[in-house]
C-alpha cells in the first residue's frame, strides 16, 4: 500500500515536470536532456546503489544507439530497433559484468576494464569507414557515423514519426517509467541485497547471497537502461557517431551523477538535466571553454559536495522544515572507498 502511494506520487510529480518544462525550454532541447537523464539514471543505479563504478557507461549508451540504427535500417521497423537497443547493450553488459565480477576484479581494476572496453569500441567504430564494414544493409560509417535511419513511429500509425513534441513526451514517459522500475527494483529483496552488497560485500556473501550473480544482474539492468538512452538520443539526433563511445561522454555521465548525487535516483537525473543544459547554453556564447568549466565543476563537486547537490539540498530542507528525517539509505561508501 505504501509502495502504491509512492508510485502515484512520483508519477504525479513526473507528470507535472513533463508538462511544466516545455514552458521554459523547447521540446527539442528537452528531448536530448531527457535522454541524458535516462543515461544518468542508469549510472545512478549501477554506481549509487550497486557500488559498481563503471567508467564506461558510455559503451552501453553507444551500443544502444548503434543497435537501434542498424536494426532499424535492416528491418525498416524502428520498434524492432528499440528492442535491439535494450537487448544488445544488456547482453554485452551481462558478458562484461560476468567477466569482471566472476573474476573478482577490485575497484580500480574494474575502472580500467570498463574504460578499456569503451576505448576499444570507440577505436573500432572509428575505423569502420570502409565499405566492408556493414551489418546487413547498414554501413557503420566510421568517424562520420550512421545518418538517415528510420526513426520511431507511432505504433498505431507507422508513417507518423515521433518527432519533436511527440518524441519528447515519449522520452519523458520512458524516464518516469524507468525511474519507477528502478525504484521498485530497489524496494525488492534483490534491490535491498544489492545495497547490502554495496555496504559490505563480504557480509552479504556470508549471509549466502551470490554477490557475483547479483552484481552481474545489476550491471545488466544498468546496461539496458543506458541502451534505451542511446536509442532516444539516436531518434533525436537522427545521426549517431562514435562520439557516443568517447571518453568525454563517459566522463560527462560520471560528472552528472556525482554532481547530482550518487546514492539517490533523482540526483543524477537533475545533474544530467542541469549540466546538459549548461553545455548547450554555453555554445550560444563562446567565451570560456566548455571542458574547462565541466572540469572545474567536477573538481568542486568532489571537494566540496562529495554527496552531490540533491542530497545536500535535501538534508538542508529536511533540517529546515523540521519534518521527520526521510528514511534514506545514505551513501557513505563513496567517501571512504579505496
Amino acid at each position, binding site marked *: 500500500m505504501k509502495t502504491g502511494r509512492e508510485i502515484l506520487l512520483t508519477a504525479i510529480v513526473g507528470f507535472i515536470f513533463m508538462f511544466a518544462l516545455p514552458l521554459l525550454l523547447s521540446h527539442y532541447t528537452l528531448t536530448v536532456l531527457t535522454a541524458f537523464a535516462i543515461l544518468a539514471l542508469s549510472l545512478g543505479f549501477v554506481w549509487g546503489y550497486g557500488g559498481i*563504478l563503471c567508467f564506461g557507461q558510455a559503451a552501453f549508451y553507444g551500443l544502444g544507439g548503434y543497435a537501434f540504427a542498424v536494426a532499424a535500417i535492416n528491418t525498416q521497423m524502428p520498434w524492432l530497433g528499440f528492442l535491439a537497443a535494450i537487448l544488445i547493450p544488456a547482453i554485452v553488459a551481462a558478458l562484461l559484468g560476468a*567477466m569482471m565480477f566472476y*573474476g*573478482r*576484479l*577490485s*575497484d*580500480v*581494476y574494474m*575502472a*580500467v*576494464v570498463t*574504460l*578499456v*572496453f569503451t*576505448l*576499444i569500441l570507440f*577505436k*573500432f567504430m*572509428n*575505423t569502420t569507414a570502409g565499405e566492408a564494414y556493414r551489418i546487413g544493409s547498414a554501413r557503420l560509417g566510421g568517424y562520420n557515423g550512421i545518418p538517415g535511419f528510420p526513426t520511431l513511429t507511432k505504433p498505431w500509425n507507422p508513417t507518423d514519426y515521433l518527432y519533436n513534441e511527440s518524441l519528447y513526451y515519449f522520452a519523458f514517459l520512458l524516464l518516469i517509467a524507468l525511474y519507477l522500475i528502478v525504484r521498485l527494483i530497489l524496494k525488492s529483496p534483490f534491490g535491498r541485497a544489492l545495497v547490502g552488497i554495496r555496504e559490505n560485500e563480504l557480509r552479504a556473501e556470508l549471509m549466502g547471497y551470490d554477490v557475483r550473480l547479483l552484481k552481474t544482474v545489476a550491471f545488466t539492468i544498468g546496461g539496458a537502461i543506458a541502451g534505451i538512452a542511446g536509442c532516444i538520443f539516436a531518434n533525436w539526433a537522427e545521426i549517431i557517431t562514435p562520439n557516443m563511445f568517447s*571518453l568525454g561522454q563517459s*566522463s560527462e555521465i*560520471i*560528472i552528472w551523477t*556525482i554532481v547530482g548525487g550518487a546514492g539517490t535516483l533523482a540526483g543524477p537525473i537533475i545533474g544530467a538535466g542541469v549540466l546538459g543544459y549548461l553545455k548547450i547554453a554555453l555554445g550560444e556564447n563562446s567565451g*570560456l*571553454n*566548455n*571542458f*574547462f*568549466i*565541466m*572540469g*572545474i*565543476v*567536477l*573538481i*568542486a*563537486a*568532489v*571537494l566540496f559536495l*562529495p554527496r552531490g547537490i540533491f542530497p545536500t539540498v535535501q538534508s538542508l530542507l529536511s533540517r529546515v522544515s523540521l519534518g521527520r528525517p526521510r528514511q534514506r539509505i545514505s551513501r557513505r561508501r*563513496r*567517501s*571512504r*572507498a*579505496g
Partner: protein
Amino acid sequence: MDYAVVVIIEVLYAISVLALISAGLAVIFGMMRVINLAHGEFLVLGSYAAIFSNRYGVPIYLAILVAAPLAGAVWGFIVERLIVRWLYGRLINTMLATWGLSLAMMGAFVMIFGNTQTGISAPIAGFTVGAYQINGYNLFIIAMAIVVMAGLYAVMKGTRAGLVARAAMQRPDMAQAFGYNTSQVYMWTFVAGSALAGLAGGILTPIFGAIPSGGANYIAKAFITVITGGASVVSGTLASASILGLVYQIFTFLSTSVVGEIALLIAAVVLLRILPTGITGRFLRNRV
C-alpha cells in the same frame, strides 16, 4: 636482416614510449595509491613547456630535459596542495577529482594555445640501417627510457629519500614515529611523479608535438600500463610496458596501428583477467 633490425628498434621504441609515459603515474600509484587521471595533461604541459622555452631561446636539450620536468614539478606541487592532499586514502574520489582536473587543463590549453598542433623538430638526424632510414630520435627515446627506469630504481633502492618514501607509504605511523612528516613525503612523491610526467612530455615532443586533446591518448595507455603492471613501480612498469609495447608494435607491423592499439587493449584486459592484481601482484612481488 636490415628489416629485422629496424623492427627490433621500433619494438624497443614502442616499449620505451610506454615506459616513459607511465613512469610518473607508476610512482604516484605505486607509492601513494593515487591515480592521477590528469597525468596525460601533465605530459602535454611538459610538451608546451619544452616548445615555448625553446621558442624563447632555451637550447633544445635544456628545454626537453629541464624546462619540461620543472613545469611538471611546479604544477604538481600546486595540484597536490590544492586538490590531491584532501583526498588521500579515497582512491575513487582522487580519480574523479583528477579527471576533472584533466578536463579543466585540456580546456585551459585550448584557451591559451588554441586547438592547433605545435611542435619542435627532432634535434637528431635520421640515420641509415641498410636500405632503411630510421628516425635517430627514436634511439634517444630508448636511451632516455633506460636512464629514467635505472634512475628510479637507484633512487628507490639506494637513497635515503627512496627508503623514507617507501617506509612512509607502507607504514605511515611508523615513519611518523621516526620523525618524518608523512604529509611532506606524500607531497614530494607527487611532485616527483609530476616531474617525471613533464619530462616524458618533453622528451616525446619532437615525435608527437603538443595538442590540447593529446592527454587522452597518453593517459589511456599509461593508466593501462600501470594497472597491468601492478603496484611495483619499476619492475611492474617495465614488465607491462614490455608486454604491451611488444604486442602493439607486432600487430602494427602485421596490420595497422589501430589493430595494434586494439591488440594492446585486449592484451591488457586478458592480463588483468588472469592476474587481477596486475603482473607484480602475482610475480615479482616485493620488488621495487
